[in-house]
């Protein structure tokens, strides 16, 4: 309300101004994270910082590899998944953060 002014050291809180604010909206939500080296994570976001270090809960990691057949040169895409209950992710490996992909 207009009767209690914000104390000077408090920033505006609820507006979405910069990209990191979009990540703030995803706290306690499931997200999709694309990482370097063809890795992907899906999990619940519990914490993040400006480096995009993150803590994810209930995580599924997918690692995708391509095998090339020596004779036919066919590309065989394989993915390996594993589940991790609670995971710290270092930000320098993160490429993209998004809401979980919906199957159309």
């Amino acid at each position, binding site marked *: 309300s207009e009767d209690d002014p914000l104390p000077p050291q408090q920033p505006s*809180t609820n507006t979405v101004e910069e990209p*990191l604010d979009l990540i*703030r909206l995803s*706290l306690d939500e499931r997200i999709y994270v694309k990482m370097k080296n063809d890795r992907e994570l899906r999990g619940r976001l*519990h914490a993040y*910082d400006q480096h995009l270090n993150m803590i994810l*809960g209930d995580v599924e990691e997918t690692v995708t590899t391509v095998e090339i057949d020596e004779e036919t040169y066919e590309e065989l895409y394989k993915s390996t998944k594993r589940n991790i209950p*609670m995971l*710290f992710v*270092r930000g320098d490996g993160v490429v993209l953060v998004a809401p979980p992909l919906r199957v159309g």
Partner: protein
Amino acid sequence: MLMLMCVCVRLQLFYSFFKSLVGKDVVVELKNDLSICGTLHSVDQYLNIKLTDISVTDPEKYPHMLSVKNCFIRGSVVRYVQLPADEVDTQLLQDAARKEAMQQKQ
């Protein structure tokens, strides 16, 4: 009495978080795909990690560090740290992350 918040506190959510996990068992996965299980001994502002009583998890196709008990891991080579889920207060983390995001915007 008014409590004034110190505005010049360095943002270090994850440093504080890891300090709270000292003494717990974790698995550190490095960018070279080596996974090391051990007890978290200490951490610093760069998230460098010291582990004690280590063992190499996953099939031991990587250097057997049988004689190595303790190690120092440079923070920048860490890909993941697997944490014990029941030692993590997710509500507290989320609140702290919101606060840190606010501080960062200033």
